[in-house]
């Protein structure tokens, strides 16, 4: 705001008003920073405290005698319902689900974006619009049919298991969730790559074509090597979304040892047998939050770009 004050006024009452202005601005910004940091801070300090200190101490105080015990307990012992095996199994469930889902949906998105920009056909806008709209539907409107289909596939898988001794992944919760996340993530990954390839010079592709390069050769040799930024954006976006998903996870892998991290965390926090160990709960929440937080810290710029592109303005 300082820039706006006219020079004349600055000369007379100037400097102090300007200083006050700056102090107010920085003060407000600091207050907002505290607002955003507070829950994370409380979660973090609580996870290093003993239960005794939590009950008798101040929520905002730093731990007197920091202890890793809650983290260890959260990782390997904490109870979700009646099974007390810690979060580690659920953590790996999430990893096993996220990695293939992200890779497949990103690759398909890249191919779709390539076709929709460089190999256009009649009705390409309609195809894209239909895929794009799929990003925005409330998943409640497909939740039940998908549950029915996954249920029958599971039964079919069991039959196959009996007949051949192998179920080909049918009925496996992780495979189901990978499938679901790929299908409902396609809209976004296609959107990202389409908007990125739109700006990619078509002349280059024409030239390669005249030289006899095939569809896949062009994709592999020309498009992919030039797609690194958008690949990073898409991978981060998909990783965050799929890791953080709760609705599909709770509907299709909502109990037992197949739960992904988010469902397990919710169960752990709501398990009411014995004394509620808040420090362990907070440590479990931190473990669930860490992967996406680390990605955010390492590649925040790309994360924001993905969110912005998700807001359609690409």
């Amino acid at each position, binding site marked *: 705001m300082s820039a706006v004050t006219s020079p004349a006024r600055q000369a007379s009452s100037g400097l102090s008003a300007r200083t006050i202005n700056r102090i107010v601005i920085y003060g407000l910004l600091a207050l907002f920073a505290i607002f955003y940091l507070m829950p994370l801070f409380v979660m973090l300090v609580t996870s290093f405290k003993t239960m005794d200190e939590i009950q008798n101490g101040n929520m905002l105080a730093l731990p007197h005698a920091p202890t890793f015990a809650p983290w260890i307990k959260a990782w390997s012992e904490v109870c979700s319902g009646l099974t007390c095996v810690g979060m580690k199994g659920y953590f790996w469930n999430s990893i096993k689900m996220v990695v293939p889902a992200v890779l497949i949906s990103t690759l398909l998105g890249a191919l779709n974006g390539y076709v929709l920009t460089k190999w256009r056909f009649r009705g390409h806008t309609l195809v894209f619009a239909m895929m794009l709209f799929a990003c925005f539907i409330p998943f409640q409107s497909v939740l039940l049919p998908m549950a029915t289909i996954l249920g029958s596939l599971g039964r079919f898988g069991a039959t196959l298991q009996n007949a051949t001794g192998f179920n080909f992944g049918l009925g496996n919760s992780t495979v189901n969730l990978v499938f679901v996340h790929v299908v409902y993530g396609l809209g976004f990954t296609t959107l990202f790559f389409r908007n990125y390839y739109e700006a990619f010079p078509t002349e280059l592709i024409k030239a390669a074509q005249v030289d006899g390069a095939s569809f896949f050769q062009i994709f592999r040799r020309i498009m992919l090597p030039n797609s690194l930024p958008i690949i990073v954006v898409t991978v981060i976006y998909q990783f965050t979304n799929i890791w953080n998903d709760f*609705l599909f996870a709770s509907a299709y892998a909502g109990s037992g040892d197949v739960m992904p991290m988010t469902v397990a965390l919710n169960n752990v926090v709501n398990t009411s047998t014995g004394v509620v160990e808040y420090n362990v709960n907070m440590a479990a929440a931190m473990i669930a939050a860490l992967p996406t937080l680390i990605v955010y810290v390492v590649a925040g710029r790309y994360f924001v770009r993905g969110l912005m592109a998700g807001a359609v303005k690409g």
Partner: protein
Amino acid sequence: MSTVAETQIKLTPEHDARPGASVRSRLQDLLPKIVLAPSFAATIVFVYGFILWTIYLSFTNSKTFPSYAITGPRAYQRLWRWTFESDPPSSWYTSITNMGIFGFLYIAICLALGLFVAILLDQKIRGEGVLRPIYLYPMALSFIVTGVAWKWFLDPGLGLEQTLHQWGWTSFHFDWIKNKDFVIYTVVIAGVWQASGFIMAMFLAGLRGIDGEIMKAAQIDGASTFQLYRRIVIPLLRPVFLSAFIVLAHLAIKSYDLVVALTSGGPGGSAWLPSNFMYEFTFKRNEMAVGSASAVIMLMTITAIIVPYLYSELREKSR
């Protein structure tokens, strides 16, 4: 924009001389469509087909298991009746009133806060690079983590209330999270905390895109800072307002996890949103038809917001 497909057509006659090559070149022509087909087919079946399936189910009498005999719009009639059942409130009445309260406050506060912080950050601030990520990181967290953190923070016996008591403000009382009339506002608080930083980033990008010359001209004309923002900057940010509104409205209608993690539905389901209503009725209360009908209503609400927006966006781009 000229496309490769056009060139392709011009090239084909040369290949046509050899029959073997013709098959191959025709395959080359079809290849892009073959590559796109699985994704498009998946979208048609698993999005649009499933939506039709859900609509179909909403007109049946399905309870615990799907039943496929059409019995008319009975589920919708029940929802319609429940819409006006305010005393004692029906679950549906609670869900849609909560949606109204949550949707309005969440969108309005996120927009106001986001714009305000973005304007503050745009005043040539030292340390912007440190502050911006701090405002934005909640967006990277899962709603479940956000819910767990705020549940602890707002707990009367452990969190904010107890802390202020310890600091000597013993009359401070804040039990919204356990109060059926106020629990939805705690969802607003946590929701705003999570999304407002992202809205700030959208506004900041918008502010950075404004031509400095316009600002300078207005300053020379003697506009005060307040006037400058009210008359010139904010009107120029209209497209950002629209995008931010769409993002928030769509997030608000889809909100489900936050209510579960933060409030477990609230006392007597008092924090339910339509998404929670759908889940509970479909999977827990064995009222599949009613659950499906509520999902259809959610879908129609989002469609009414998104379709006009996507239409104008895509038309603008193809121009």
